[in-house]
């Protein structure tokens, strides 16, 4: 499924809608170049889960936890291999109790479950526009339809 985001606010809303269809144990892989909005999607997911505070970039600490909403925000930007993500302690948060969103997931894909949802962001023609592709296994189909409906409805 593909959607177009016209702004950071749009991307945030998409993340929010994704956050509302996730259940504990789900993993979202966020892919895209620097500046495409991976952190914004993760911030939206946190918001969709009910988090109301700041969601800064986890680049430095690799794993940020939002305990009260069971959200684990990961950034593999500085990692070189899946083993490094395991060393950073990711397995504790893949045990079914947490929702994980992993930026630069391609660098550490083997450390993540195969049934994950992938969200890929690309720059589009206009400065603020992004092409966002969402995909996963068959079980995501229904949920992604809900995400699209929510996203398009909120766009008015």
């Amino acid at each position, binding site marked *: 499924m593909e959607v177009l985001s016209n702004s950071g606010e749009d991307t945030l809303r998409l993340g929010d809608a994704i956050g509302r269809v996730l259940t504990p144990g789900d993993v979202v892989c966020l892919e895209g170049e620097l500046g495409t909005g991976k*952190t914004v999607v993760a911030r939206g997911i946190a918001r969709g889960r009910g988090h109301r505070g700041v969601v800064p970039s986890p680049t430095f600490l690799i794993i940020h936890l939002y305990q009260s909403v069971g959200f684990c925000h990961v950034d593999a930007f500085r990692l070189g291999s899946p083993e490094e993500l395991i060393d950073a302690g990711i397995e504790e948060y893949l045990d079914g109790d947490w929702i994980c969103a992993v930026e630069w997931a391609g660098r550490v894909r083997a450390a993540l479950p195969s049934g994950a949802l992938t969200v890929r962001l690309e720059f589009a023609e206009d400065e603020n526009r992004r092409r966002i592709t969402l995909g996963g296994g068959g079980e995501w189909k229904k949920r992604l339809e809900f995400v699209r409906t929510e996203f398009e409805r909120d766009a008015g």
Partner: protein
Amino acid sequence: MLVLGIETSCDESAAAMVEDGCEMLSNVVASQVDLHRKYGGVVPEIAARAHVDQIIPVLEEAVVGEARPDLVAVTVGPGLVGSLLVGVSAAKGLSWSWGIPMVAVNHVEAHAYAPVLEGRLPQYPFLALVVSGGHTLLAEVGGLDEMEILGQTLDDALGEAYDKVARHLGLGYPGGPVIDEIAPAGDPAACAFPRPMMGSGDYNFSLSGLKTAVIRFMEDSERRDAVRPVEDIAASFQAAALEVVVRKTVRAARDCGLTDVVMGGGVACNRALRLMLGEACEEEGLRLVCPSPSLCTDNAAMIAALGYLRYQAGHRAGLDVDVYPNLKLGGVPRTVA
């Protein structure tokens, strides 16, 4: 009282001996920057492994002669879990084998106390600006363990933005010093980059959008075959990023009635930032204290300095003290026993 400080929260293994919380007898830092340079950033597993290799030599160099410390102070967070564990384990070992007390220190808070090592810590309350690869925040320091956040980054840290922009410009790692080095040769008005959050009415920062603007500008100019000299882009990025930091710092001090400003953290070494903030503070009648560069970057002397103050206030850490990768300001338990 002789205090041994130990710091391993990120990419520096460091140890220092400090007398009575202010007089540095040694300050040893084994930097891993060369190791990380080829990876374009700090790679955590490498960081932890290098800390294991470096911690003993660093401690041997710091603890000179026969004098044994009376106290060991160690960073327990925030930082990378594997790296923190190396320093905390070393501290526990020394505390136990030498039979000396141990005290836990918050790395970010310690940056605000670095001036004490040069006899320049202002009276409470003062404003602290901590800018580094992992942190960007303004806090009012009302007293020991009374550090209240006034504003912080909503996305990227200042040093992180420098690193990511430098990487995109093909300038390598660490990005801060490289951009600071070449920016004076460029025109800071060459590219009209945004000043994010300038008018937000609070003291928060947002640097991610600026990073994106730089990346998009470069791609756009490549497409139009109108590529700007890298010095111009670096200078324009730096001007935009620092203007927001400086203006918000001055505004926070003014609004909160604080006349003393302490700046610390690795990005506090940035010459343009020191100059701009110095001028802005002078205009505003504020006193700016910025430690020497070697005390702005991660070091263990500041850990010993704050550890001494916390010990005097009755804080102790037991041998079961944990590490706290996501530690918040004021998050270090008062007494862990």
